[in-house]
């Protein structure tokens, strides 16, 4: 969205290379910056920002909505991936452990699962059932849908960090194959959200992929919403 040239590379040890242990991270010159917040600040310090045109109240709203997405959508995604036994067995463990040989794949997967479950317990999500989590996702999507309304982006004509964050989460939810389709159904209930994702995908990803000498992984990772 900022029109910055970027090359996407997939690595198995990405989590270990990152300074904060979390992906994604960017490698620019001799600097490494990880996670969305710091990356946005870094890019802003270099002179590119998407939210300069917003006034103070709108910036406060944008930050609040970003926290909502982080709080609800991200936690729900983590819950579904790591705390729902069926999904864990069939999808998450094989996927997380796939770059490694046995027994490392099992050990690392269990270690990550234990870490995530501890975190869920600390914030009180461990006691939630899958239905409650899905209901929370529904509430969050409803809030996002109402905020978006009929506008092209959340803050009218220009995309901002919030649009990027929401697109990232919703696109992943809509295109990842899970054991059940309940999560993506919750998002599909809101037509303006799916239209929003489709619009961003068409505008920013299909054009760029043609210029990209992109790796095979990047091309296979691109799953179109227009199924």
């Amino acid at each position, binding site marked *: 969205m900022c029109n910055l040239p970027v090359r996407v590379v997939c690595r198995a040890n990405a989590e270990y290379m990152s300074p904060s242990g979390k992906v994604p991270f960017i490698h620019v010159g001799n600097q490494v910056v990880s996670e969305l917040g710091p990356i946005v600040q870094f890019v802003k310090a270099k002179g590119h920002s998407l939210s300069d045109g917003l006034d103070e109240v709108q910036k406060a709203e944008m930050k609040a909505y970003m926290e909502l997405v982080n*709080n609800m959508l991200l936690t729900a995604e983590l819950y579904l991936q790591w705390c729902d036994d069926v999904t864990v067995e069939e999808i998450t463990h094989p996927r997380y452990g796939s770059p490694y040989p046995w027994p490392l794949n099992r050990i690392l997967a269990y270690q990550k699962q234990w870490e995530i479950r501890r975190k869920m317990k600390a*914030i009180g999500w461990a006691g939630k059932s899958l239905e409650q989590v899905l209901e929370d996702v529904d509430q969050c999507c409803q809030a996002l849908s109402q905020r978006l309304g009929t506008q092209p982006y959340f803050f009218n004509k220009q995309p901002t960090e919030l649009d990027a964050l929401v697109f990232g989460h919703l696109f992943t939810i809509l295109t990842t194959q899970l054991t059940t389709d309940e999560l993506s159904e919750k998002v599909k209930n809101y037509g303006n959200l799916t239209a929003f994702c489709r619009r961003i995908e068409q505008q920013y990803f299909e054009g760029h992929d043609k210029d990209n000498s992109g790796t095979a992984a990047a091309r296979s990772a691109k799953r179109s919403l227009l199924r």
Partner: protein
Amino acid sequence: MAAPMELSCWGGDWGLPSLHPESLTVMAYAKFSGAPLTVNTINNSWRTPKGDVPVLISEDTVISQPAKILNFLRKQKYNADYELSAKQGADTLAYIALLEEKLLPALLHTFWVEAENYCSVTKPWFASRIPFPLSLYLPGKMSREALNRILLTKGGPPLYSLTEVEAQIYRDAKECLNLLSKRLGTSQFFFGNTPTTLDAFVFGFLAPVYKVCFPRVQLQEHLKQLPNLCRFCDDILTCYFRLTVSGHSPSGQDTADANLQKLTQLVNKESNLIEKMDDNLRKSPQHPPRKLTTLKLAAGGEESSPLNRLSP
């Protein structure tokens, strides 16, 4: 609709009906929506707090988390968000998420993790309200849970030590307070002139920071530099927790408007004057709230010691 509802929660001090942010949120919402709630503060009896606090008991249903309690009250037709548009409802959710992510860790830290605060204020206060021998164990458990929560949610690399995590969470909390202040601006409540769920949550989180006298008070000092948030807390305290006549808030507010204007002028002076104003208001002749008499009697005994600490 008239089924009596009981709320069990932590009691209050320093001019607040409760010290616990979640209990305060539920109480504030009940006042805003006019729900008739009998408040039972947890005290030295053998009805010990089991599991989550606050707990709402209505007939046979027991509900424990603030979000679920508010949902239940809304289903019983006590809805403070009736006049909000869909977008405002969405904004409410977003700002509540902001509070939980950015302000709550610092609040937990100030109350439960900061050693001086915990040992001199929080632990004795809570221990005095829990029967022996649980009073030896429960405050420590709450402190460990708070630290755990902070470390697990905020403490990953590149923040490797507790001091770095502390610095980060206080930075986040101050930014959150600034954002709330900008959003509130000069209006009386967050969505116009009537208080809503968001006001209840903001009040629940801000009032303990604002009123409780701790030895280490960096968050309180930052809050006092944002006069519109201080005015917001004081308004709710005076309108809804002192002057209510029959638990139906709007009628109490009409009679308090004249008092409110005077109060708003005085609130703009230094923070010491605000605390003295609270005392003056309590002594002045007004309708005493029927439901809160037990709270006031219980709080009356402890007020002398914080006041002594305040006087130079």
